[in-house]
């Protein structure tokens, strides 16, 4: 692929002797929507930790962008500024602040203390916040305190904060957890639209949700790639069936 945005190759990491990631290699193109599935402990969250700089791998390479920059050794903030946004498994928004403040903080703008201290509200920024709120369906909730939002709304706000960062790659960890059926549909739509112009990687447990995303699927197991392809392709793979059914997963 010549439009590869992120290339993870031969990455391994172990915690106290347990190999969480075992020579994992994945390529993500731009734009692309990709789902990563796998049973508990397959290394999905650790994979995200490595890309975003939270965890340093023992070996392997993580290469980013046209200029082939290595993300290893960069700080979390630098990686985020390079264009990688991350949504956590539990919705983590700033609950004491309003929806508008949450989005304003995430908006792509200079991140230095001095620039932030002297920051003025501009109509352009306000318009961007309005547009993102519209996209995630929280226009009416902009002045509300984020802590008052429902679980689903918090998930959307966090996705909105990701969009506000204008990243080239979105890493989304279990966006549908704890959502109702209608909320899931809306979440799928938001992610699909986002993936039209950028790379979106969704880590998910829920097969139904993945089916609705209708995209290429990577199955992780014990820290490495077990199968890759369309959902129907990977679910007909006997090892995948064994890994899932063998653990009591339907």
């Amino acid at each position, binding site marked *: 692929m010549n439009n590869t945005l992120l290339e993870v190759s031969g990455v391994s990491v172990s915690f106290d002797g347990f190999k969480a990631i075992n020579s994992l290699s994945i390529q993500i193109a731009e734009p692309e929507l990709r789902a990563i599935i796998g049973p508990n402990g397959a290394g999905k969250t650790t994979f995200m930790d490595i890309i975003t700089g939270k965890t340093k791998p023992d070996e392997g390479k993580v290469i980013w962008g046209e200029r082939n920059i290595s993300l290893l050794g960069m700080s979390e903030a630098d990686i985020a500024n390079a264009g990688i946004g991350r949504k956590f498994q539990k919705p983590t928004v*700033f609950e*004491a602040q309003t929806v508008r403040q949450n989005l304003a*903080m995430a908006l792509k703008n200079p*991140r230095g203390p001095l620039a932030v*201290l002297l*920051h*003025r509200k501009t109509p352009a920024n306000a318009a961007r916040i309005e547009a993102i709120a519209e996209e995630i369906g929280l226009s009416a909730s902009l002045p509300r305190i984020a802590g008052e939002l429902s679980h689903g709304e918090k998930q959307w706000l966090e996705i909105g904060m990701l969009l506000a*960062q204008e990243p080239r790659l979105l890493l989304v960890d279990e966006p549908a957890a704890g959502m109702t059926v209608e909320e899931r549909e809306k979440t799928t739509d938001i992610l699909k639209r986002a993936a039209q112009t950028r790379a979106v990687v969704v880590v998910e447990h829920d097969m139904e949700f993945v089916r609705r995303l209708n995209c290429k699927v990577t199955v992780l197991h014990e820290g490495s790639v077990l199968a890759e392809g369309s959902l129907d392709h990977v679910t007909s793979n006997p090892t995948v069936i064994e890994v899932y059914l063998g653990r009591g997963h339907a």
Partner: protein
Amino acid sequence: MHKTFISQNPSVLWFIGLLGLFTLAVVVGSEATGTGLISTSMVKTLGKTLCLCLIAIAMDVVWGYCGILSLGHFAFFGIGGYAIGMWLMYARTEIIVLGSLEGQVIKPTPQEISDAIGNQIFGVVGSSEFPWLWAFADSLFLQLLMVVLVPGLLALVFGWLAFRSRVTGVYLSILTQAMTLALSLWLFQNDSGLRGNNGLSGLQNIPGYEDTSQAVISLVFFLGSALALACGYILFAWVVSGKMGSVVQGIRDNEARVRFLGYRVEGYKLFIFTLTAVISGIAGALYYPQAGIINPAELAPIASIYLAVWVAIGGRGRLYGAVIGAAFVSLLSSWFTGGGAPAINLGFYTILWTDWWLVLLGVSFVCVTLFFPKGIGGLFDYLVRKPS
């Protein structure tokens, strides 16, 4: 922009208004300019209280807004006090020494003058040499620069080392506590160059104003403290409002999330830590001329813990809460420990408040933390409903 700042922070206007009224009342009541209803020592107590309020809002910004529980901010306060104290002591001793040498037939050499001043200041620790620390003590301007530079640089270096290593929570608190303890122990040494446990004294006498009464001097310092508090309040209200406030409170609530948004958390923490340290230094420089004396015990760890207690009782995360806490608790403390509170005779035991005040303070701290986590300032939430 200013209009929106005030309209978004109506508490600033309220605070400045109330502080102005209070200042006016003290001016009217003081012995220097008014009716004399308020004694000079009371003016000094009130002026000192304003300085404590200033360091309390600094503490509130670093702890209540940014989530860094610093238990060492009184070190910066003390450094500010020492910095101004050195000039006050040097300049005043110089005037006295020059006065006593005036009548001599042979003009004293500069070395003799210097030795005489050194002897006066350091005789108490058995020395007459000027330590290197006093190199700038003869210049008011340079010592005033030290008031902001030394706390600022110390906070910058300390904070850079601590935040870069991602020391957070209780470990950071212990580190800051160790910093103030180390500083205090060093100052206790006779060869520290700052007169050991004697500290610096006579600071209420301002060189060049020997003929001005303490009533006037104390009122001037009171007004200076009120002005500093007002400016500090506006400065901090500005810093914690707007986008900076968003980021800083975000760091308090979820540091990792702020990092993944692309903000370098260490830089923000360092900025807040250093800024509050500088303001603490200024507060100390205004406090100790009113107290008249500074000694190493002022930098003892317990002082910084009291500071955290004031802010907790007053209400974290709101600037006026810190002011209320500092003023209320410190004035109450001087009332109880100064013998103002009547002893309670239970028949079998007499409660002497000088002994029992600390117990009362401790119990109220526990109660506030458990039952009123928003502190006294939280009561205002019942009065004012925030427009959403």
